């Protein structure tokens, strides 16, 4: 309990999951997403392509009878496509009642980041053009980019409306 005191003060209702982030790698960058969004982590599997979708929505997968869309986070960040290998993982998250799989280069660990170690992202114009990052966490000298899950999905619609 002692190590969670800071979090418990801010959000007493959420107990053990507060302040914990699942971190994963895209290239050399470490990203983190709040653990309460994460449903499960699975290895890469056969993806069924669905036509007419933006490039980063790779298609749909069969998650034990449930069909969910998968998004390649690499492509979402407009980084070049990289072939999937046995380190590639699908992080299944549930964001605003939507189940979606996030394809990441590899999953590393779950870390606890105290709130005082999280700083707001750098200026929107320079480092965070798409607004996916809602904070930067520091853990033992390492920098973790904390993802704004809702933005990850939301931006999509706006982008698409402008396309149409």
């Amino acid at each position, binding site marked *: 309990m002692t190590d969670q005191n800071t979090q418990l003060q801010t959000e007493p209702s959420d107990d053990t999951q507060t302040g914990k982030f699942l971190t994963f790698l895209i290239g050399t960058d470490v990203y983190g997403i709040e653990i309460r969004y994460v449903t499960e982590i699975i290895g890469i599997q*056969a993806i*069924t*392509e*669905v*036509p*007419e*979708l*933006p490039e980063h*929505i790779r298609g*749909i*997968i*069969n998650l*034990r*009878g*449930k*069909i*969910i*869309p998968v998004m390649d986070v690499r492509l979402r960040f407009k980084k070049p496509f990289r072939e999937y290998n046995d380190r590639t993982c699908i992080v299944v998250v549930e964001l605003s009642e*939507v*189940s*979606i799989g996030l394809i990441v280069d590899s999953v590393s660990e779950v870390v606890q980041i105290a709130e005082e170690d999280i700083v707001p992202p750098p200026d929107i114009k320079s480092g965070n053009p798409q607004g996916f990052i809602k904070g930067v966490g520091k853990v033992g000298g390492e920098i973790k980019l904390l993802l704004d899950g809702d933005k990850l*999905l939301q931006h*999509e*619609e706006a982008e*698409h409306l402008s396309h149409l």
Partner: protein
Amino acid sequence: MAEFGTSDPLLEIYLHENSQLLEQLEQCILECEQANAFSSAAIDVIFRIMHTIKGSSTMMNFDDIAALSHVIEDLFAFIREHQPRLTDYSTLSDLVLQGGDFIKLELYKIRQGDAPDGDSSPLKISIHRYLEELKHRHAGQQDRTAPDEDASGDPLDESARSIAQGAHLQAILFFDDDYNMENVRAFQVVHSLKELTEDFNCWPEDIENNPDTAGMIKDQGFQLFFRNGESAETISAILSQAPCLKQLEIRELTLPEVEIASPPAVTSTTVAENSKDSNSVADASLATVQPAAAQPNVPSHPPQETPALAKPSASSTGAQQSSFISVNLAKLDELMDLVGELVIAESMVTQNPELAGLELEQFRKAARQLRKITGEIQDKVMSIRMVPLVNTFQKMHRIVRDMCKKQEKLVRLQLIGEDTEVDKNIIEQISDPIMHLVRNAIDHGIEAPGERSSAGKNETATLTLEAKNVGGEVLILVRDDGRGLNREKILQRARERNLLFRDEAEMSDRDIYNLIFLPGFSTKEVITEFSGRGVGMDVVLRNIESVGGSVSVDSAAGEGTTITIRIPLTLAIIDGMNVKVGPSRYTIPTTAIKESFRADRGSVVVDPDGNEMVMVRGQCYAVLRLYERFKVMTPITAMEEGILIMVEQDDQTFCIFADELLGQQQVVVKSLPSYIRKIRNIQGLAGCTMLGDGSISLILDVGGLALTS
């Protein structure tokens, strides 16, 4: 009782049960009307339905509904008891149907979250008047037929009249056992009565301050002695509205009794005797008001009542009902998903590639058994969702009846094949369209009796609703023998409304008839209450199309009109042909496929715009290359290497080019994830499904493909 008003599950049950009861009521009335007699069984059923509705409505604090059902219940209590010779059935059924409609509307309001604010008093008054009239006539009949019969045969009637103003009355109230604090409830009654009556006394007396009185009331009832200042009806109405009332007796006290009763400290023994007394109908005139039983869930529970009404009527229907249970549809959907997974898991085990080449005789046996069972489970789960059309069809009786009365037409409704089963979701979607069609048929199609007889037809028109299974589809026919569609009138109207897009000379009768499905089309000059706003037919078409069905119309002038609705058996499962394009798999509904063939190089031509066409038996069909349409990489692009599948939907025929056919199979239709649907509405895809090996196949929407090709 605020806790009942806010607790959703209770409200849910209340709404569900009462709507079912109302449906049953309506059906029962219509049957009676058809037979032109109210059988005693039917009267029992109606009585019981109203009784249950009243009970549960009181419990839920919907006072208007409770009051109305109470009045109807009274009416039927009288009919049941005395079986008066009814001369005018249609007034009676009208009254009850109106009552049912009122309650239905209120239930709808409640379901929508609105306050049930309808005013039933005009209806209550007319029912009351009818009851009085019945009593009057009945009394007259009795005088003539059995002059020496004792008045005790009619205690309810007698008492109602004999409680004159100013009489001394005793009322005994029993409250429901489930609710404590009887003294508090009794106080409410006292409060509401005190101002209206004179010489008011009650037992036990000190209900306000002494909580022990609760037990006394529970055991012996709450007794009121008063002199009547208002009419007897007002008193009994006020008393019967007391919350959670189980039983209410009102009796007139004879003078000696008044003397005994007037010192308010009545000993408990006399009270017990008094109540026993009042149970024997013999000498005391006894007014009985039906109890508001608080157990709406247990219709067969014999309510503890006074002898006059103590015959429990629910035994037969109660037994029928118990063989059904209602299940939340969402649970069924989940169950079906799970079974779908089970089937896939089963094939993943039994057809596991690691088993290849192994001699496993016992395993194969066990696997076969497993497959058989999973298959049966799947069939059963599917069949659970299937509901016969009988309810939908029978609702039409009411519509036909009401319309015939209003429009003075004679129509006989004939139902054929109403036990045909259709998926529950589909039934919900088609019941409105069918209703529309029935209304249209009576309003526009069927002539008035005079016109019919002068045309040499039977005055009574026949309207047929027929359902039948044809392959994977259900056909529903709405057929009338009315005047038929007027080709010229339709054309003229279409011209006026600018709805003609083709040369009139080229249009077949059928094409012209189908114009009536266009939005904004209505040929009836006079707009009636029932139809004729021109929103009907295109809404019908849209509703049917939304469940993957189609509508067509056929007619012969002077002989009638037939409207045919084609709907798939179920939305959840389709028979599909799986095809392969590169790494992707697609499923084409078999109902849309006409044939598949391999094209010769010479039979494919390209027009100057780059559209490919293939000649088949002298006919030209457009070719849609799936890999181009869906941007899939595939090595097979040459016409003679792949395969062409000719599909037809909505009179559009074209050919789909794919790599190869994989085989035919029943697939469970799943919609694409909502996230994807939100991003983009993909034309040409109807959904997706899981194949036996766990991979996903996309289901093609042939109509959508045709639009964009």
